[in-house]
């Protein structure tokens, strides 16, 4: 009964989406307010019905109704309640339902809080949302219905893939989807602007918070996924340049570029056409990501559905939306008026450089991800493009970007003074040089690259701090005045500083982890001691334990350093009986930002166990950086300018823009 109700609610949501995608745009054409307002109610009702449908599926998983295929294939009555709920989106059908739920959520938010939007713009935006929603409802109902029944219900389910039974997975996909799908709003705004043939600085002001929200979630989602891979896969890797990871990185890169170009558009009314294009590209990359992950077109360290019908369907959606929006762009972009002028050396110029580097870096990732696929389709030659390729292409571009990052906020709008900016960055530069010299001396004979990269990171962090110091006139005026000025700074300035510093911090973590990682891989018997990076790990005992839906072999290590016992570490290996597969649960010991990492391999016949021990210096910075970036995004989101009701579309600004 619940399944049928959920299915029915989904069909009704499709119906509502179809109304939403036709009626309001006709209303906008005819200038009929009542018809345009239909968008608002359908968007909200759609959210209600998808919500009901998702709740129904969750309910089925919670009560373990194995007469539903989806529940049977991915659940087990003995599974802990938390994983019964997270298992809802731990499979193809459920995760697509989550996708449309989030899409409807964003549509509903625009409907509910978009009262200050011009009526026709809101109608157009929600229409485009309706198109996307309708396409994906059709996809779910036609190829991935989560509510299908089994004619003779089995007694027990097949359980969720063990590696997915983890709290990291509970949070990672929803976060990622909030990011992916959140970019649909800027896409809809872009397409709406193209349909209306009108765009101004106010448009950017409406788009920016939505982009920022999506970007924050995507940043956190990617970081979370990376940390999950780090501790769950048992070999301490945190980024594999796997196509599925690239699929989430590409929208992030494009989204970051969009965030910056939207600033130029909002403040200076320039880069309009580019911002529109970037909005389209960002969401296109999100769709491409969905296609790569959902169609099974790529094999990677991630597993996915392998049903070609689904792949073809998503490919159609992909072509329709990307092709359609780009054609619309080609047809209408020339109608958009060009805005403010600026010198190449200026804040705008710096942001253009940022956009250029980010999109080109994104392009290299796209190339590396799709090239093997294209080559195989065209010539049948198989090859793998792995980490070395991306390190050699993405790496240098990102280094260029990081060098440029501190200069951006230091330059004035319209026409900047590069020399002046360099002078103001003197302190950061000196700090970077000291860092390089100290590290080089300290690790003499080791890598020369690592001190340079850390110096760069210090420069970025120092640059962010200098910017704050410069704006508060710290050290030049009494401290109290500087503090008062700090309080008076726009939150978005703080946001910028945090986000840029976060990038630097993540870079330090990445460099330290890859360069000074030490490891011990070998077999150990009880009472053996392994020495790693100044820590002694003594294997005390190996015990067996019965979990709710698995059997577990736990090894207990006593960790000591300089004769002082620090803590116990208990890595384990879980054997999931239902699926006959096992997972490795690594044990982590955090010391500051560094971690000791222990994971287990097979047991030998003589009772010895294979053990992998890593010491990863400053590894946690890799994830603290993105968290800081997201926090910066949040600060920027809370900026007064974005909270206060949208200003009137400023006709006057263009007249005031200095004509050079």
């Amino acid at each position, binding site marked *: 009964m619940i399944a049928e109700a959920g299915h029915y609610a989904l069909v009704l949501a499709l119906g509502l989406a179809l109304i939403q995608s036709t009626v309001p745009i006709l209303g906008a054409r005819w200038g009929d307010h009542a018809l345009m307002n239909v968008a608002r109610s359908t968007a909200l009702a759609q959210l209600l019905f998808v919500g009901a449908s998702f709740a129904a599926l969750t309910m089925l998983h919670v009560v373990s109704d194995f007469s539903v295929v989806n529940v049977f294939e*991915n659940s087990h009555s003995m599974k802990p309640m938390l994983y019964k709920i997270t298992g809802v989106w*731990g*499979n*193809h059908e459920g*995760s697509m339902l989550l996708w449309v739920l989030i899409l409807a959520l964003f549509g509903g938010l625009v409907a509910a809080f978009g009262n200050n939007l011009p009526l026709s713009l809101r109608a157009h935006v929600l229409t485009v949302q309706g198109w996307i929603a309708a396409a994906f409802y059709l996809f779910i109902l036609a190829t991935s219905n989560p509510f299908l029944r089994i004619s003779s219900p089995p007694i027990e389910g097949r359980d*969720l893939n063990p*590696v*997915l039974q983890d709290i990291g*997975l509970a949070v*990672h996909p929803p976060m990622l989807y909030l990011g992916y799908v959140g970019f649909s709003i800027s896409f809809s705004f872009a397409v709406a602007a193209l349909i209306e043939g009108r765009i101004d600085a106010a448009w950017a002001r409406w788009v920016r918070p939505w982009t920022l929200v999506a970007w924050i979630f995507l940043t956190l989602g990617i970081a979370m*996924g990376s940390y999950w*891979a780090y501790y769950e*896969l*048992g*070999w301490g*890797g945190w980024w594999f340049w796997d196509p*599925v990871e690239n699929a989430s990185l590409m929208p992030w890169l494009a989204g970051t570029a969009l965030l910056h170009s939207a600033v130029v558009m909002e403040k200076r009314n320039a880069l309009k056409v580019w911002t529109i294009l970037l909005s389209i590209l960002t969401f296109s990359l999100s769709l491409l990501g969905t296609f790569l*992950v959902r169609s099974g077109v790529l*094999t990677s*360290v*991630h*597993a*996915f*559905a*392998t*049903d070609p019908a689904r792949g073809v369907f998503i490919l159609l959606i992909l072509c329709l939306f990307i092709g359609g929006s780009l054609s619309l762009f080609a047809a209408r972009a020339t109608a958009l008026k060009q805005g403010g*002028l*600026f*010198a*190449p050396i200026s804040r705008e110029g710096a942001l*253009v*450089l940022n956009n*250029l*580097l980010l999109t080109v*870096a994104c*392009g*290299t990732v796209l190339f590396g991800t799709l090239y093997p696929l294209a080559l195989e389709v065209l010539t049948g*030659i*198989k*090859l*793998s*493009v*792995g980490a*070395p*390729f991306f390190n*050699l*292409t993405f790496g*240098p*571009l990102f280094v260029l970007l990081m060098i440029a990052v501190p200069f951006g906020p230091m330059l004035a709008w319209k026409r900047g003074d590069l020399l002046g900016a360099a002078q103001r960055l003197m302190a950061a530069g000196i700090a970077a040089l000291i860092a390089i010299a100290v590290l080089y001396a300290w690790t003499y004979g080791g890598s020369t690259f690592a001190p340079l990269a850390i110096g760069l990171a210090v420069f970025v962090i120092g640059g962010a701090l200098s910017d704050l110091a410069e704006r508060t006139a710290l050290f030049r005026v009494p401290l109290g005045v500087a503090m008062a000025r700090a309080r008076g700074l726009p939150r978005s300035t703080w946001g910028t500083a945090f986000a840029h510093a976060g990038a630097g911090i993540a870079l330090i973590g990445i460099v330290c982890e890859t360069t000074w990682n030490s490891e011990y*891989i*070998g*077999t150990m018997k009880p009472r053996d001691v392994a020495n790693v990076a100044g820590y002694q790990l003594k294997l005390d005992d190996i015990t067996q334990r019965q979990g709710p839906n698995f059997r577990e072999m736990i090894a207990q290590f006593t960790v000591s350093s300089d004769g002082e016992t620090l803590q116990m570490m208990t890595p384990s290996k879980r054997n999931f009986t239902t699926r*006959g*597969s*096992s*997972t*490795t649960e690594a044990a982590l010991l955090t010391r500051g930002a560094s971690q000791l990492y222990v994971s287990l*391999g*097979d047991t030998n016949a003589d009772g010895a166990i*294979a053990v992998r021990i890593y010491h990863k210096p400053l590894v946690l910075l890799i994830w603290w950086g993105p968290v800081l970036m997201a926090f910066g995004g949040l600060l920027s989101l809370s900026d007064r300018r974005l909270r206060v009701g949208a200003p009137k579309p400023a006709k006057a600004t263009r007249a005031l823009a200095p004509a050079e």
Partner: protein
Amino acid sequence: MTRKQRRLTMIGGSLAVLAIAAALVLNAMRDSIVFFSTPTMAAEKQIPPGKRFRLGGLVQPGSLVKGDNLAVNFSVADGAATLPVAYKGILPDLFREGQGVVAEGAIDASGVFRADTVLAKHDETYMPKDVADALKKQGHWKDDYGAKPGATAASAPVQGASK
């Protein structure tokens, strides 16, 4: 500067960045791309010792020998040919005899494939795609592979081990 000059500066800058990126990509393509082979293809193509490639196939049942200090030897077969593989380290959880495997490394002077990375993934419905395609081509294809979508949609990684 006139509007035209500014535009030219912008276009020039963009082209410069694109050129850098293209150079980087071409350079990386030369050194860092690894081709995929099965044992049969490796024998046919006479891959020279020391050239890195990815070897895919099934772990020959009965070939797995565990030595001291995590040294492992096994053979990879594709029905027509087999190639001995030596690896040192912890094998992934999902490594089994008779199951699909992808190893990355190079053949040494004695004709043994020295792997530094071993990837394995299997359940009832899955084997590495490279392996599946290669086996399909040679007619060693079990129909039930891939018939059912591995419904573990979100992200069930191939287990990897790397030295």
